[in-house]
């Protein structure tokens, strides 16, 4: 059985490593492209959210390359991500493909569920082999995340724009190629050194902008039109709390013991939103409050018609004493030029705000918030 998993950013590196490690053939869908998007849009329901359309496009492209078993997230929840698999299976059947669709039900059974799935998919490979493959896969994600954190710092300060991004792309390739923990460590160390050697401007203290919003869009550069790279070009240091390694660690292990990494964010959100509304809506309310002393502003990413993020968007303007927020709504109509113009305007406003604060004109109180629907380019 040839397996495929749709893209979310660079997650394919980990999946490929895990499945190859247990001797399963994995078809990595071609990198998400305009073509993927147009395939997804063509066959998806009209007003479903962007991740549905993109992952459907990935499936179609992977099936054309010979994939037979599709893996999609599933399990009960408050947002329609858990419904994707049902509808996508029907769409693909109607298109005439023959395949099997497996949903992870990750959130119900955590690490045991993943291990069982791997065991089933790998023709009952011994658990030790599965465990070691998974360890390597997770280590690869952690390595990519470590490098990415450095990239965020370098990108904002580098004197020749684009070097950090180039090195990061090479890093992902090298991590993908790494065969074991030893070579992975060496590669990671090497690339972090290379990043540290990039000539940087040490004079200016860059703006710090947090990225928050819907998990898929935040982690998938195609969906968010490389918002992190664009901000880096404008000399902005990007921070975000959503890292795959972090998320996996908690959703697979620690949450089972009642430890949540998001408690602080939820505490901050509590006066404005008392309940988890699914997806990342609760976090999107809490983050601009929690980080108000650390960051200069936040960019909020949301797919068009995303239910949890709509709640957050409605609540955000009433929050007192929070960071300025730029909301970017992503769908198939998005245009990069339109987004960049708004980012530039937002960054200008943030510089003015910082300047005003430095001169002591304290502008306490509400942060402003700007919203950008996709469309104009």
């Amino acid at each position, binding site marked *: 059985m040839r397996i495929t998993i749709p893209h979310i950013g660079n997650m394919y590196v980990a999946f490929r490593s895990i499945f190859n490690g247990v001797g399963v053939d994995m078809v990595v869908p071609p990198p998400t492209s305009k073509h993927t998007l147009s395939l997804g849009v063509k066959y998806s329901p009209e007003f479903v959210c962007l991740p549905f359309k993109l992952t459907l496009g990935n499936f179609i492209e992977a099936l054309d390359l010979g994939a037979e078993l599709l893996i999609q997230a599933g399990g009960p929840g408050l947002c329609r991500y858990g419904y994707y698999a049902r*509808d996508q299976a029907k769409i693909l059947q109607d298109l005439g493909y023959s395949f099997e669709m497996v949903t992870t039900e990750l959130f119900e059974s955590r690490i045991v569920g993943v291990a069982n799935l791997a065991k089933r998919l790998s023709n009952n490979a011994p658990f030790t082999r599965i465990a070691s493959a998974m360890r390597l896969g997770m280590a690869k994600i952690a390595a990519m995340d470590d490098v990415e954190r450095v990239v965020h710092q370098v990108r904002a300060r580098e004197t020749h724009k684009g070097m950090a991004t180039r090195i990061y792309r090479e890093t992902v390739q090298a991590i993908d190629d790494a065969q074991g923990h030893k070579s992975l460590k060496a590669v990671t160390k090497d690339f972090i050194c290379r990043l540290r050697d990039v000539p940087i401007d040490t004079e200016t203290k860059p703006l710090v902008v947090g990225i928050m919003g819907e998990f898929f869009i935040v982690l998938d550069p195609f969906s968010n039109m490389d918002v992190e790279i664009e901000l880096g070009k404008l000399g902005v240091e990007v921070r975000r709390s959503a890292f795959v390694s972090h998320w996996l660690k908690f959703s697979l292990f620690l949450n089972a013991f009642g430890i949540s990494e998001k408690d602080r964010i939820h505490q901050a959100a509590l006066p404005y939103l008392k309940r988890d509304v699914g997806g990342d809506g609760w976090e999107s309310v809490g983050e601009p409050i929690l980080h108000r002393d650390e960051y200069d502003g936040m960019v909020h990413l949301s797919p068009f*018609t995303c239910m949890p993020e709509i709640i957050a968007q409605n609540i955000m303007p009433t929050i007192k004493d929070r960071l300025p927020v730029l909301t970017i709504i992503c769908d198939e109509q998005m245009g990069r030029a339109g987004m960049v113009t708004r980012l530039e305007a937002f960054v200008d406003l943030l510089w003015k705000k910082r300047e005003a604060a430095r001169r002591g004109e304290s502008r306490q109180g509400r942060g402003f918030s700007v919203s950008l629907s996709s469309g104009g380019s």
Partner: protein
Amino acid sequence: MLKIGIPRGLLYYQYYPLWSTYFQEMGLEVVLSESTSKAIMAAGSSRMVAETCLPVKVYCGHVLDLVGKCDYIFIPAIRSIQKNVYNCSKFLGLPDLIKAVVPQCPPIIDIDIDASKGKCNLHPSTYDIGRWIKPKPKREKEAAQLAWQAHLAYLDAMRNRGVTPVEYLDAKKATTSSAEKRSLTVALIGHPYNIYDEFITHRIMHRLNALGARVVTPEMAGNEALAAGVEKVVGRPYWTYEDEIVGAGGHYLDAAIDGVVAVVSFGCGPDSTMIDVVQRYAKHPGARPLLTLVIDEHTGEAGLVTRLEAFLDMVARKARRSA
């Protein structure tokens, strides 16, 4: 006497007898907002982010209508009414959403209803209303029992007597089911807050009647038939109100009727995928014809009527041919 406001939107159509009886039996006065109107819809829309779905905007308009008319507003946060089957985010975020966009809103009674957690379910005996209303109302237990009976009576009337919520809840409007002979039977499926709101769906029920069709709705099929419909089309239910679209679709597309009209609102998360599943199911040979109408605040009345007329013409022709 304390006044409790109940907005005439969203779950009003499902649970009004339950909630109004509960409060009235405790000696509180229930204030209901006016029927949806252009002004109510416009007031609600103007306060919310454009992307928000129509029923939530309309609901916000109803809350605005109640401001100044009551001491509390009842907006429960319904997470689940069945184990491991959850509701759309918007129902959960509703109390906080309303608090944010309507700052002048009276105190909100935001009871948590989450059957997956066990303790708090739809039955009013679990509401612990004393947390919101001080002093604690009397006769809480009896009121809860009576309310539940009222709820069951309401379900029974819809299922066994073919009464629509509008006829049951609003005796003044109980109207047009005159005895004139109607040759066609059409199922109208969708969430009650869409299909029974006479303003946002332009009195679709009356229009279908006027065009010579008898209308059946999801509630009339009964819970078991709807659950079987969901099972048949997608398997295990995912959304709390999945039976209103997928269940009703699965049931009526194979039933001995002439056609199915589905109403969904633009931008509704659950509807976006559910209606796709139903449309795909409707392609199987022998399924009844299906018309899908997507509504938002710009829906033109003439466009809707034209499409209904064309659909019923087609359905009538089909019925004649097979007769």
